[in-house]
C-alpha cells in the first residue's frame, strides 16, 4: 500500500506547488514533479517480489519463466511518459520565455491584473 500512497503524494505535492507558485518557471518544474508521481505508480503496479528485469540473457528452458520477470508493459508506458514529460517541459518553458518578453513578468498574479 505504501508505494501507491507515495505516488499519490508526489502528484499532490506537484499540484500544490503549482497553486502556490509565484513564478511560471517554478510552476513548470512543479508540473514535472507531479508527472513523476505517475512514473512511480506505473512501476510499482508492475513490480513483483523477487522478480528481475524483463531482459533475457539466454533462451529460457522452463515454460513458466515469465513469472520471474516484472511487468514490461508498464515499463514501456513509463518510458513514453518520461519522453512526453521532457517535451512538455521544454514547450512550457518556451511559452514562459515568450510571456516574459511580451508582459515583462512571469508572476501569474501580475499577469492577471495586467489583463483586467
Amino acid at each position, binding site marked *: 500500500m505504501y508505494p501507491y500512497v507515495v505516488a499519490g503524494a508526489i502528484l499532490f505535492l506537484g499540484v500544490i506547488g503549482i497553486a502556490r507558485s509565484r513564478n511560471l518557471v517554478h510552476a513548470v518544474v512543479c508540473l514535472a514533479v507531479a508527472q513523476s508521481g505517475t512514473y512511480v505508480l506505473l512501476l510499482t503496479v508492475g513490480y513483483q517480489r523477487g522478480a*528481475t528485469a524483463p531482459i533475457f540473457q539466454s533462451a529460457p528452458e522452463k515454460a513458466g519463466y515469465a513469472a520471474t520477470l516484472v511487468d514490461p508493459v508498464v515499463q514501456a508506458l513509463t518510458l513514453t511518459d518520461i519522453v512526453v514529460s521532457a517535451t512538455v517541459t521544454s514547450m512550457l518553458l518556451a511559452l514562459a520565455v515568450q510571456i516574459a518578453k511580451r508582459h515583462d513578468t512571469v508572476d501569474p498574479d501580475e499577469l492577471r491584473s495586467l489583463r483586467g
Partner: protein
Amino acid sequence: MNAWIVAAIVLLVAGLGPALLFCARGSSASRLVGLQLAGVVGVLVLVAIAEAAGQPMYLIVPLVLATLSATGTLVFTRTLHQDVRAGQGAGDDG
C-alpha cells in the same frame, strides 16, 4: 538479504539523504555541492543494486550516470556564474 542490499540501503540513507539535505539549503552555488555528492553516491548505489539483483547488464545505468553527472555539474557552473559573482544570488527575486 545479501551484503549488496545492505550496502545499497546504507548508501541511500547515509549518502543520498545528506546530499538532499545539502541541496535543501543555502545559495544555488552551495547546493551544487549536494548535487556533486548525489552524483557520486548515486553511481555507487546503482552499482550496489545491480549486484544485489545479480544482473551485471544493469551496470550500463551507473556508467551513463557517471558520464553525464559531470556534464550536469558543468551546466550549472556555466549558468550560475552570475549568481556566484553577485554573492548572494542576483536576480533571485522571483
